[in-house]
Each structure stands twice: as C-alpha cells, then as structure tokens.
C-alpha cells in the first residue's frame, strides 16, 4: 500500500506543478501582451501628435468634401464622412452580391461542362479554368478595365446592342424602366402570383401523396409567375415608360448607366471566382458514387429524375462547403475596387486617410465592417452545411 500512496502523492504533486506552470506562463504572457500594447499606444500617440493628426471618431460628422461617382443612396460632397462610409459599404455589399450570383452561374455552367460527355466542351471548360485560376485576379481586372473596356469606341460611336442599349468607353447604357401610375397593380398581381404558386405547390404535394398523380408544377409556376403579371400589365394599359439614354452633346443623358469601373470589377471577379466554383462543382458531381447512379437507373428512374434525386443532393454535399468559402473570398476580393477606382469601402476609406490622416479610425471601421460581413457569411455557411450533412454510424 505504501507504493500506491507514494504514486498518488507524486501524481498529485505533478498535477499541481502542471497547474502552477500553466498559471505562471499565462501570467507572464499576459504581462508581455499588456506591456507591448502599452508601449505601442504611447508610441502611436507621440507619432500622431507629431504629425498633427486628430484622434477619435468625431471626424465622421465632418464634411467629406470629395465626390463618389457610384452611389445607391443620395450623396454629395457636402455630406459627412460617415455618410461617405455608408455609401462605400453599400457599394461593397451590393457588388459582392452581384458577383456571387454571377460567379455561381458561370461556375455551375463551366463545372457541368467539364463533366458533360462532350469532349470539346469539356476541354474548352478545362482550359478556361486552368487559365483563370493561375493568373492574379488583379491582373484580370486591370486587363478588362485597361484593355477591353478602354478600347471600346467613344460615346459618339457607341455600339448599339439593342434599341436603347449602348456600349462605349464611358460605360454601358440601358433604358431605365419608369413605372407610371397603375404599375402598383402589376406588382400586386406578381405578389398574388407568388402566393397562388405556393398554394398550388402545397395542393400538388397533397394530391401526390393521396393518388400518386404528378402535377406539372414547373409549367404551372411559370405560367403563373410570368402570365399573371403580363395580363395585369396589359389590362392596366401598359403602365411602363422607358427612360432611353440619348446622345446629347458629349455624353448620354437619361437611362441607366453602368460605369466601366463597376463593369470591370464585377466581370473580372466573377470570371475569376467562377473558375474556382467550377472546380467545386466538378469535384462534387464526380464524388457521387457511380454505383448509386446505376442502382437508380436499374430501378427504372428516368435520367432527369436520377440527376435531381440522386446526383444533385449528394453533389451539393461537397459543393456547398467549398463554394461558401469562395463566397467569403469574393467579398474580400471586392476590395480590389481601389485599384480601378470603384468607390467601395476601401476606396472611400483610402481617400479619407489621404485627406485627414486618421488611419487608425478608418482601419478600425474597415475591420468592423468586414468582420461583420464575414460573420454573417459564416453563419449562413454553417446553416447550409448542416442541411446537407450525411449521417454516418
């Protein structure tokens, strides 16, 4: 028994030693971190004073004094820095959303092309992916902005893609729809169509459970969502006017304008990320076990049903985690706007730093905004992942 007592005592001693060790390490580390932060703060304060730079976030109320060419909300140089930041943040967000949609479409098409049976199409897709993935995205951006868009004809010789749609060096111009009175009726009919479609789907599902009848859900949905608003539109006397861009003097007036900076950013980022998403899609589709596909065919399922019920759900299990990662990267890539002059939040912040030197505050705001967006994307990612988990033993 004495030996057992001795071992217990020694175990107890080493446990205690371990805990003391850990505590001492943490204390020393903490002291080091506190000292470093303190030293940095002292030094920073001294440097800021020497340069005559203010501190604090009061500057957000000051007049901005610089223009922003693209803005979702009203903005003039007389507005505050705070408002300028808001404009930049909104630009970042909606650019990211458009890029996510576009990159997904490109990625799915190219990814599916790579696994299609057609060798020519698959090879072309593979070449696209290998080229886009191995060049810096900034180079693609600069190329589209500096070479492709810059070589478009001037405004006087703009290419007319369709009546009212022009392509020129200064941007892409579209006719802008102007809703007249009575358009509310069309909107109401669209909402009604959506509600009807939801009810129809529920009814179709019930009928299927009871009798096995397969209702043509897709066709009915299309008819409702397109047909109903169209009928309402005609009944209301076509309450839509078009603000068509017309050449007046040196530029187009009216209509919707897409600035070349915006176009270059969106097209460049989407083409780049699309290549990565294509790889995810390809990997996901190829990960589905061939045996299960065979079993589905052997049961008599049609090829369309095999794809929608067997291949797709299992491919998504692989595609979604990888692709949500790419979406998070897209949001960060949008900061490249500063390299081509599009007013995202980094561009706007950069101008501010140039004007009043309050880099610390601007950087803090950047970090807050991006980390918040990242958090939202992460939460969405985890929710999507969980939905597609396969349950294992």
């Amino acid at each position, binding site marked *: 028994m004495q030996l057992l007592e001795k071992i217990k005592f020694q175990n107890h001693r080493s446990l205690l030693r371990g805990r003391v060790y850990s505590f001492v390490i943490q204390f020393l580390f903490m002291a080091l971190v506190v000292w470093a932060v303190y030293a940095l703060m002292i030094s920073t304060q001294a440097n800021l004073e020497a340069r005559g730079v203010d501190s604090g976030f009061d500057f957000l109320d000051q007049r901005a004094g610089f223009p922003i060419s693209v803005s979702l909300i009203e903005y003039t140089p007389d507005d505050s820095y705070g408002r300028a930041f808001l404009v930049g943040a909104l630009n970042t967000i909606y650019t990211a959303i458009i890029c996510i949609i576009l990159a997904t479409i490109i990625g799915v098409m190219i990814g599916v092309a790579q696994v299609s049976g057609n060798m020519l199409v698959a090879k072309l897709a593979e070449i696209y992916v290998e080229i886009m993935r191995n060049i810096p995205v900034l180079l693609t951006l600069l190329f589209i902005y500096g070479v492709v868009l810059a070589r478009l004809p001037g405004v006087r010789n703009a290419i007319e893609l369709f009546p009212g749609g022009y392509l020129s060096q200064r941007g892409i111009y579209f006719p802008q729809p102007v809703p007249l009175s009575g358009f509310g009726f069309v909107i109401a009919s669209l909402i009604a169509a959506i509600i009807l479609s939801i009810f129809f789907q529920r009814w179709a599902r019930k009928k299927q459970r009871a*009798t096995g009848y397969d209702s043509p859900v897709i066709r009915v949905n299309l008819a409702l969502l397109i047909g109903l608003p169209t009928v309402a539109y005609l009944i209301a006397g076509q309450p839509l006017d078009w603000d068509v861009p017309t050449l007046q003097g040196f530029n187009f007036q009216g209509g919707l304008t897409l600035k070349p900076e915006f176009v270059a950013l969106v097209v460049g980022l989407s083409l780049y990320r699309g290549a990565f998403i294509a790889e995810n899609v390809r990997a996901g589709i190829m990960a589905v076990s061939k045996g299960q596909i065979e079993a589905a065919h*052997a049961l008599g399922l049609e090829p369309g049903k095999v794809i929608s019920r067997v291949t797709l759900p299992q491919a998504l299990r692989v595609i979604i985690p990888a692709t949500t990662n790419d979406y998070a990267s897209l949001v960060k890539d949008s900061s490249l706007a500063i390299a081509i002059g599009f007013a995202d939040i980094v561009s706007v912040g950069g101008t501010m730093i140039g004007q009043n030197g309050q880099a610390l505050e601007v950087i803090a705001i950047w970090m807050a905004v991006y980390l918040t967006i990242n958090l939202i994307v992460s939460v969405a990612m985890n929710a999507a992942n969980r939905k597609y988990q396969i349950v294992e033993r």
Partner: protein
Amino acid sequence: MSEKIAESRGGRQQPPAVIELTDVHKWYGNFHALKNIDLTVRKGERIVVCGPSGSGKSTLIRCINRLEVHQRGSIHVNGVLLTNQTKNIKEVRQEVGMCFQQFNLFSHMTILENLTLAPILVRKMPANDAVDLAMSYLKRVNIADQHDKYPGQLSGGQQQRVAIARSLCMAPKVMLFDEPTSALDPEMIKEVLEVMVDLANEGMTMICVTHEMGFAKSVADRVVFMDMGEIVEENTPDEFFDNPLVDRTQSFLNQILSH
C-alpha cells in the same frame, strides 16, 4: 440442355420464358467479352451463374437490364425485345430488379425513402401506399425497425437486405443478383442468403452470380458455368457438382471446392 431438364420434369407444360438470350455477343472495344450466349430462363426458375473472374458473368446479367449494351443477338425480357429506345428500356427495368455487390443504397436518403423513391416516381404510386408497401417489405427482410436510419448507420448485411427490399418494392418479375455477398463479412453472409432463399421458395425467378456453392446446391434449379465469355456448361446442381461433363468445369470445381 434446357430440353433435357424439361424432359426430366415429365414433359409438363413449361412455364413461360421470362428471359431469353439468343446468340448474344458483346465487345468492349476490340475485346470480345461475351460469345454465343444462348440462355432461357423460365418463370420460377432459380439460376446460379458461376465461373472464374473475368469470365463475363456480371457482364451477362448487366446486359439483361441494359446497364451494358450487347452488340449482336437479341435479348427478350418478359416478351419485350430489348432495344436502344428509352421507353423500351424503362419498361424492361421496371420488371427486372437488381442487387449489387456494393449494395448501392442512396446514402442521402433514409431507408424508407430509399424504398419508396422508385414506386412513387416510376409507378406513380401515392406516397402513403408506397410507405405501406415499403414497410411490408422491410418487415419481410427483418429490418423494419431501421426504417428511418440512413444507410451509413447500418452494417453491410443490413444494407444488402435493404437493397433486396428496395428492388422488391417494384414488384419485378425477375431478380438479378450480382455477387450479393462478396463484399460482406462472413457473419453477415448468412442473413442475406436466408432472405434470398426465402425469396426463392416463394417462387421468385432469379439469376444469381455468386461464389456461394452451398446456396447453389440447395436452391438452384440450374447452374450455369461460364468461362472466357461463353457458357461452358449448364446443368442441375446435382449433375453439375457430381458429374461435370466438361473438363474445364471439373478443374474449376476442383479449385473452388478445395477451400
């Protein structure tokens, strides 16, 4: 040889032919994989196909439900000629059930969903009826309590039994088995063979590619031996195992029965 067997039944009216292969050949590129295949399977017959690996056994049964395509000869299933037309293939596949060596259950669906998928989508069965049908078959293979688990949560033997139930839900006229127990641990082979024996005793027409000679002896009406893409010999189990006619059959039997 089929005539000999028919004679041995005392010349009774023979049951209709469910599967007829006539002069079937198949090539993979230049490789002649199936040669001169003539095989007739009648309703209620249990056929075991055996042979060394690479002999074309799997290819043969996969041609029957068009998972492989033959280039010469004709295959009739339930009187329907097997062609390239999708409608025709779909018709054939509904009448032919298949069980694979790797089970091939849909890993993203529950057991119940695995079974009800085809009846609902292909036979247009109401969902509630499909569920009842599925549960009855699950009970039959003794796995009803696992109906809401996922395939990844079941053992190999359980998965194969579910796979058999899944095929049965489509009420096939004939069941094809492609080495159903080859991927199982020895303890689980018994439970799957029991299900197959039950199925045979109920009168299901079946073609089974397997190495389980015990199963062949106890259940099969005919044993078909294949080598190098052709049928070398076929006979009743007794005759096949005790009095093989061809030397190649004898050497094959010597190999496998020495284990």
